[in-house]
């Protein structure tokens, strides 16, 4: 029964991967671009493009709620989830995808962050720090308990790799992409209201704790989805860096969302290409490109602001700098 239901969802994802792979093979045939001849690169580009949509989509809400570090906290718990999956597979001989266990552990951790903040009235960064440390400690302990079996596979999760993007992992990410897009599309107005003015949102009747939980769970999904290419250590960058760059360019929230996705796509596509050509780690390369794009956005934003200020008539109470 469960297998049948799973098939209903995974089959269209499989078709999408096949169609995408076929398309890139055609492009490779016409252009002779070497990296597009490999199936793993087809999947890497597909996963990268999807990550560059969902990460800034969620990151835009997080950054403007000053919760940029939650990505880091959940990435470290996702690492614990990976360690749980690897440990279970090594000790029980099962074949559970570590990404699935990572999704579960990260979502539990996301709820724990909210719970700690609500129950103890602690600042959000305190609960994040507790969950981050617990996650990394759990991962480290599980790996040390079975060092011979796990240590070999851990590096790819820590630093990310284009080669780890298997077909099944791509299907998982397509599923996460669909869930995240659907939830954000449905609750966009509510999430925006809570992000901008939490008290007014409560007065307006929104269940703010519920939307906070939704946001942290979506963050957990993004983190796990992006982890396979970016790696645990760098995954949070995709939630923050393109968003910070977009904030320098955009006037409205919608523009900021769009701009952050465009900047993230540039970072991912250029980063994956450079990573392939120079055999550098994918996560690190993507983040370095993202930071370069961010610096360019900051410089462009400053130049535009200064030019607008010089052109605009001086007014006492209103800047038209944007």
């Amino acid at each position, binding site marked *: 029964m469960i297998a049948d239901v799973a098939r209903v969802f995974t089959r269209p994802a499989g078709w999408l991967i096949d169609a995408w792979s076929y398309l890139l093979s055609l492009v490779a045939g016409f252009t002779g671009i070497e990296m597009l001849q490999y199936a793993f690169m087809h999947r890497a580009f597909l996963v990268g493009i999807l990550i560059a949509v969902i990460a800034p989509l969620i990151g835009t809400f997080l950054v403007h709620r000053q919760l940029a570090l939650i990505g880091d906290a959940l990435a470290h718990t996702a690492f614990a989830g990976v360690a749980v999956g690897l440990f279970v597979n090594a000790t029980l001989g099962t074949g559970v995808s570590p990404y699935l266990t990572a999704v579960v552990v990260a979502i539990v951790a996301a709820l724990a962050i909210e719970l700690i903040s609500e129950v103890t009235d602690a600042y959000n960064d305190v609960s994040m720090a507790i969950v981050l440390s617990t996650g990394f400690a759990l991962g480290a302990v599980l790996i040390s308990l079975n060092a011979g079996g796990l240590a070999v596979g851990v590096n790819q999760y820590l630093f990310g790799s284009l080669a780890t993007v298997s077909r099944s992992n791509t299907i998982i990410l397509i599923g996460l992409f669909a869930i995240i897009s659907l939830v954000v599309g449905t609750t966009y107005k509510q999430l925006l209201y809570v992000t*901008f003015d939490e008290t007014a949102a409560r*007065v*307006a*009747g929104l269940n703010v704790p519920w939307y906070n939980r939704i946001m942290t769970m979506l963050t957990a999904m993004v983190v796990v989805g992006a982890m396979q290419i970016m790696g645990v250590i760098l995954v949070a960058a995709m939630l923050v860096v393109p968003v910070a760059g977009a904030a320098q360019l955009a*006037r*409205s929230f919608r523009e*900021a969302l769009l701009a952050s996705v465009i900047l993230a796509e540039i970072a991912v596509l250029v980063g994956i290409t450079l990573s392939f050509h120079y055999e550098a780690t994918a996560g690190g390369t993507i983040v370095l490109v993202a930071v370069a794009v961010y610096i360019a956005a900051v410089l462009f934003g400053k130049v535009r602001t200064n030019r607008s200020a010089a052109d605009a008539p001086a007014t006492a109470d*209103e800047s038209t700098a944007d």
Partner: protein
Amino acid sequence: MSHISVENVSFGYTATPVVRDVSFTIDGGEYVGLVGPNGSGKSTLLQLLLGLYEPDRGDIRLFDRPTRAFVDRERVGYVAQDVTTNTKEMPITVEEVVLMGRFPHAGFGRITADDRERARKALRKAGIAHLAGKRITRLSGGQRQRTYIARALAGEADLLVFDEPTVGVDAESVGEFFSLLDELNRDGMSVLLVEHDIEAVIEHTDRVLCLNGELYFDGPSEAFPESDALERAYGITTGERAGVTR
């Protein structure tokens, strides 16, 4: 129909009550100022009225319904101190903020052309239609407060509740802000204003509530400077009252 009804309400964050046995009613179209010294429980009382906390004792009703059962949330427009100090450089336009007033109406549905038209109307009413496309963090404090009023108007609120709205706003903008409030009240809007500036409250509102844990005064604004509530709540003596008059 009363817009706000408070009966024998007490509340404390700890065992010590911050608000003690407070009762009053605000009817439709009233213009009421709530004053009190720092720590008097003004903001706490406001949060109780808005349903953000439950009173330990007593009963609070909004539009004749208990606050916990009150669902027509768009009927209450809430304007606090400027929230953009918390949102730093969040890229969001005046129009996007004002449209938030339509969110309770839209629920999970799409923002319609009618919603946008009502938001534009609210922007015109607040006198900031020309700022619709501007990023809110680039506006003056007075313009930002007008934006939040426009958000409440877009939601078609019947009652506007303000919590120290003029903190950090320059003197000229404060004058314009109160002019807008006066105009809205003349049009029939109920206004409850929590404000530290007693003179402004006496000058603009029709009725004053003075709180310092318990309610010290509830009466016409012009009678407040002559009441003993000023001395009891603020320690202002008879000789110092000359400055606190219309």
